[in-house]
Every structure is written in C-alpha cells, then in structure tokens.
C-alpha cells in the first residue's frame, strides 16, 4: 500500500529530513559542476588554441621568412611535444599554401577545434642608410618599431586542438568532486541519522505522554532525555499534564458542589411547590369559608325575605311590612356586596389597577402602620423611577408585602423603610431595610418558604434578589427589569 508523506512515522520523517537536504545539495552541486564544466571547457580550449597558435606563429616567423621547412617541422614537433592537446599543426605562407604541417594524433572519435594566428614580421628599427629623406647617421638609435601597420604579414599558423584531453581532465575533476561530495553526503546522512535518532527518542516520550493524557491519565512522567528545546518540550508536557490533573480535580469538585446546590434547589423547589399547593388549598378554604360564612347567610336572609313576600297575599300585606322586607333585602344585598368586594380585594389589590403601583405601595405601608403601632413604616419612591406595570408591578408589590409581613412577624423592628429607585438604567430596585434583630440568612432561607417564593418570583421575571441580615437589621433587595 502506498503511503503519503503525511502518514510517515516520526522516524521516517526525521530520516527524510536528514537525507533530503544532502541529496538536494548533491544534485545541485553536480548540476552546477556540469554546467560550469561545459562553459569552462570551451573557454579552456579557446584559450589554449589561441595560445598555441600565437606561439606557433611567433616561433615560425624565421621558418616562413627563410622557407626552411625543416625548421618549421622541428618547431612544430617541439610545440606538439609540450602540449598533448594539439592534434595537428600547419604553417601557411602568404598565398595560403602549406609550408609545413604536422599531424600529432588521430583526431577520429573526438571533437576538434581549429585556431589560426597570423605570422607577421616585426620590423627592426635601425639606420639602414636606405632613406632618401633621412640623415644617414651611423649612431642613430634603434629598437623595435611599435607601429603595427609596419608589420608585414608572412603567413598563418594553424592549430587544431582536440577536445579529448580537456574532457578527460574535466571528467577527472568532476569525478573527484563527485567522490568528495558523495563522501560528504554520506557523512552528512550519517550525522543526520544520529541527530534524527536523538530527536526521535524525546519525541516518542512526548507522544507516549500525550497518549496517556488522551486516555485520562494525567499524572504522566517523562524522563528528560534531551536538552534544549526538546527537553523544554518534555518538561512542558509534564507541566501540562499536572495542570490538567489539577484542573480536572477542580472541575470534579465544582461539579460535585453544583450537584449539591442543584439538589438543594430542587428540594427548595419541592418545598415551594408544596407550600404553594398548601397556600392554594388554604386560600380556597378561606374563600369557601368567606362565601359560606358571609355570603350564604345573607343570601338565605334575602331568600327568606323574598319568600315571605312571595308567600303572602300582596293585598294582605301592609305597606310597612313590605317596606321593612324591602329594607332588609336592600341592606342584606349591600352587605353581600361589601363582603364580595372584600373577598375580591383580598385576592387582588384593587387599588393597583385604579391608582397604580406607587399609590398602592403607599396604601400598603399605611395599612401596616395602622396594623402595627410599635413599628414605624415609611416608603420613598425616588424621582425618575419608572412606573412598574402589569405582572411585574404585582410581583414587586407581593415581594414588598412579604418583606413587610416578615418584619412584622419576626424582626421586632421599630423602624422599616421601603425605597424604590432606579439605580441602573432599565431596572427598578426595591430595598426594604429594618432595624430589627436580624437572622441567620442561610438558616432562615433554608427553613422558610416565603423568601424562597420571593426569590422564585423575582427570578421568574429576570430580576435578581439578595438578602443581608445582621444584629443591626435586615436589608432585602430585589431588582426588576423594565422595558
């Protein structure tokens, strides 16, 4: 099955990492050498050919002037003996005829390059007494004439250079470099493998530790077998496992705590539901009693009065009797109406619908002041506080009603203050404080269901509820969001 590099093991990757750069460098080096050798080869051949041609031209000057073929051949033989790259030498006269030629080697099977160099005589300056314009002075200075125009072309020197010796030399050089490069690559590879092995072991340790962590074993131990960054990596893994372990323990304890809290909340909710059911039954019972005790007797009285009227002959009744019965029915109906209104009022504060939250609150505080002579209740609604409406207003009203009832029942306070304000935009805060004896908040909340109900009511409307209590009194605070 063919594996992609992505699937390679660490060992394979490290070996590739160690070997690949060496191989790439080797390939680049060999390519560069071949390119350079090709360029150098032509330059070397050109240089050698021109040099040999110039040398042949210079050394053949006399042979061409004197047409001494023996001298020319001797010159060419000597030149060929000193340079193994020469394949053929020839000297031509000014007419292009071959004066002498020398075949050094067989050029078959190798590429050859031909070079040519002019053979010219450099005039020698002296007084030859041959001028018709110059003085014929015997001591006139002499020397080589510098003017190239005065050089006389005598012929040409032809040199044929074979590429084989150059190629051999270049190949030898390339092979030498290749051998050295291969040795260097081998050493580099071995060195890379050693390094890879040194890297692999710590990485394997780290891998093992990571796998343990993945399996939930946070207390891993990694022996530090490497220095430097790999050692730091190993240490980091160990530190990380320790941190994960402690985090895990913290989370476990947190979950346990939250579970307990949830169980407690569920218990409270059960109590609240039971209390609510009890309250509901109690309220039904009270309403039934109210109807039975207050409405039914009045209705029976009205029935009896109406029956008396219906049973007697209207002509037999006197006007006083009819008036008296009508008066009884009227007063009894008034009584029924008053009782019904009281019952309704106890079910829902009517004043809330007619006067609004603030007035209803003021009436509530007034009623408590009437009921409780030893405690002074007061209420302050701060200016700019949004007016609460609807169910939120009812809830706030009930929260305050519960708070004031608790003060009356438990606090033994002499002063109580209800403050309604808007400490935060979009929220209405209700604060009830008293100077009572206070209570243990945790215990109080655990046993009583009133405060639980308050908390649940506030939470139901997205508000918040807090309670502080001490020897100096109690502060109840509830915040309600307002749209």
């Amino acid at each position: 099955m063919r594996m992609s590099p992505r699937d390679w093991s660490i060992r394979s990757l490290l070996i590739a990492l160690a070997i690949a750069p060496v191989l790439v460098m080797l390939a680049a080096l060999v390519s560069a050498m071949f390119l350079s050798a090709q360029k150098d080869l032509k330059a070397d051949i050109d240089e050698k050919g021109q040099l040999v041609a110039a040398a042949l031209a210079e050394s053949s000057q006399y042979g061409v002037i004197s047409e001494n073929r023996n001298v020319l051949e001797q010159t060419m033989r000597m030149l060929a003996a000193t340079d193994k790259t020469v394949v053929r030498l020839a000297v031509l006269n000014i007419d292009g005829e071959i004066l002498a030629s020398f075949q050094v080697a067989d050029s078959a099977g190798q590429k050859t390059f031909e070079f040519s160099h002019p053979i010219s005589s450099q005039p020698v300056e002296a007084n030859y007494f041959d001028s018709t314009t110059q003085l014929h002075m015997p001591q006139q200075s002499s020397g080589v004439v510098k003017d190239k125009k005065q050089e006389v072309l005598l012929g040409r020197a032809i040199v044929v250079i074979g590429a084989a010796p150059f190629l051999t030399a270049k190949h030898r050089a390339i092979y030498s470099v290749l051998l050295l490069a291969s040795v260097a690559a081998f050493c580099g590879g071995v060195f890379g493998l050693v390094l890879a092995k040194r890297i692999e072991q710590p990485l394997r340790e780290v891998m093992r530790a990571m796998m343990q962590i993945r399996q939930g074993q946070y207390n891993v131990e990694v022996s530090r077998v490497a220095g430097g960054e790999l050692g730091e990596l190993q240490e980091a893994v160990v530190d990380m496992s320790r941190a994960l372990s402690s985090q895990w323990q913290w989370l476990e304890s947190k979950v346990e705590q939250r579970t307990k809290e949830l169980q407690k909340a569920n218990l409270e909710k059960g109590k609240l539901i039971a209390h609510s059911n009890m309250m509901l039954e109690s309220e039904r019972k009270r309403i039934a009693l109210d109807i039975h005790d207050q409405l039914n007797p009045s209705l029976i009285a009205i029935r009896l009065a109406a029956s008396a009227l219906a049973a007697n002959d209207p002509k037999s009744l006197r006007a006083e009797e009819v008036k008296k019965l009508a008066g009884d029915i009227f007063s009894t109906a008034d009584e029924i109406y008053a009782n019904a209104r009281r019952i309704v009022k106890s079910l829902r504060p009517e004043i809330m619908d007619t006067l609004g939250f603030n007035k209803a609150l003021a009436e509530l505080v007034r009623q408590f002041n009437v009921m409780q002579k030893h405690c002074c209740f007061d209420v302050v609604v701060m200016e700019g506080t949004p007016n609460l409406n609807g169910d939120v207003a009812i809830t706030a009203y009930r929260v305050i009603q519960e708070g004031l009832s608790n003060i009356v029942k438990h606090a033994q306070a002499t002063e109580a203050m209800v403050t309604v304000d808007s400490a935060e935009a979009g929220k209405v805060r209700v604060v009830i404080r008293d100077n009572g004896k206070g209570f243990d908040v945790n215990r109080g909340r655990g046993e009583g269901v009133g405060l639980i109900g308050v908390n649940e009511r506030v939470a139901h409307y997205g508000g918040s509820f807090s309670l502080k209590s001490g020897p100096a009194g109690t502060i109840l605070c509830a915040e309600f969001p307002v749209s």
Partner: protein
Amino acid sequence: MLGKTGSKSVHLRRRIVTQSIVVGAFCSAKGSKGALPGAEVRALVSGSTELVRPFIEAFGSRQKNFYYDSNLRSLVARRGRAIYLALGPVSLSTLLEADVDGPIISVFVASQAYKQIISSAKVNRVKQVTGVFAECSPDSQLELTYAIFQRRISVGVLLSSSTAGSEDLIRRAAQKHNIELVAHMVSANANPVRELNRFSDVTAILAVPDAAIFNSQTLRGLLESTYRRGQGIIGFSASMVMAGTLATAYAAVDDVAAQVDEIVQFISRERAPESQYPYYWRVEINKQVARSLNIMISDGVLTLGNRPRAR
C-alpha cells in the same frame, strides 16, 4: 626648419666667428693652388636640427668661419665665397638643384644614395661636389673582421644590382686582409634570408648599405638565420649593432667633422676631390651577440680604428 619658433621670416642662425687667417695659412702651407681661403662654410640643414647638432658643434669647434641654416635663400644670400655643406640626402639634392656658387661637401649620405643623387645632377656641377660617405669602407669593415676572428676566414656578402659595383672594392679589401670573400648577387624578387643558405660555410657576413637586402623587414630574419648558423654580421652602422649585428666600423660625428674640416682645407673652386669613405673610424661591438656566438673579443679590437687629431 632650423630654429623656427612662430614666424616664417625668422630663422635662427648661428654665426661662428670667422678665422680666415688660420684657414688661409693652412692652405698656403700646403701650397694648394686654387683653394678658397677665407671662404665661409655654409651648412644646409634639412629636417631636425637636433639630429645634426652634435656635428654642428664638433665642426664649429674646428671651423670658425661656419654658418648653418635650414633656409636655402638665407644661405645663398650671404656675401663672399662659400663652401657648402649638405647635411643629409635632402640637403644634397637641394643644393645641387639650386646650383649654388661654390663647391659642395656631402655629409651623412651613404655611398649608394650619394651615387644615386649625383647621377641625376648636372654634369658640370658634379665636378664641384664631394662627400664623406656615411658608412665606413669595406677595407675598414674587413680589417675589423679579421681583427675579431684573428685568422683567415671566409666572409659572405650579398649584393644587389645597385651595389654590384662595389664587389671589386670589397674583394680587394678582402684580399688585403687575408679574407676569403664569397659574394652572391641577389635578384630583385629574391628573399635575402633564403639567399643566406648559400653562405653555409662562411664565418661571417659583411653587410653593405643596400636597401634591397638590409632593411627593417629583413633584418630580423637575417639576424636569426645567421645566428642559427653561428655566423656574425659585420654591420655598417652603430645602430645596426644595437639591433643585433656583431660589430661594425663606423665614423662618429667627431670623425666626420674632422674629415670634412680637412676637405675644406684642400678643396678648390674648380674641382672638388673624389668622394671618400670615412678616413677616421672606430669600432662598435655587440658583446652579447659575441658571447652568444662564442666569439672572444680582444681588447685590441675595441681600440681599432683611426682617430682624428685633437684640436
């Protein structure tokens, strides 16, 4: 132009104080009939004065009644009798063409060029022309050759049509100095270097001024060819020795000045003496070439020659 420095009409001239009494007394003492006592020696300079200045100074120290100029008109416009000095081929041709009134002495003109110029001059004018050739005589050269080798040797000489007439003179000189001469005529289109192959047995080559044989194009080949054979070239000018020939007899400026001074003493108005090779000469040796050819040069060779009297 002599001494011209900006203005065409101005010619720098050098006037030597006339001492005609000395010249006249010399002439009288020699009893030469028709000599030119008191004649002013007037030199016509062509080309650079700097080249001939050593001669002017050397001759001026001997001949006090001496005047030189690069302007011919200025020269002939001078009063009194005169002997004219032609310094170089151009001056000689100019003086001959100008038909100046007085004898002409040619200096620094080689024999071949001299004969060429004279051959084209008026016949009656030729009688009044003489000269000292630029090169030394074959006699001097072969005397030097013998002195160098100290034995009877054979010497080769290449001649062309223009120098063929010198063969007898050279042969007589060779005979005089116990030298075997091998002369070879070089045809017009022949390669002088190749012609040297005929001299495979000679010990030295005598070079004579011949433009067809010894020139700037052939000298290198000639030198190389003779060197390969172990032959030395006896040149005809000191500059050729510097260029690579073995040795030469040559007339230095002082030597020429002394000889010209003597000619001035004897020259007559009607007829000038025959042109002649330098009487005074000395030797120039290329010691490096001699060492390369394995030739030992004795001290006597270096002092060979004929020096003029000091004045």
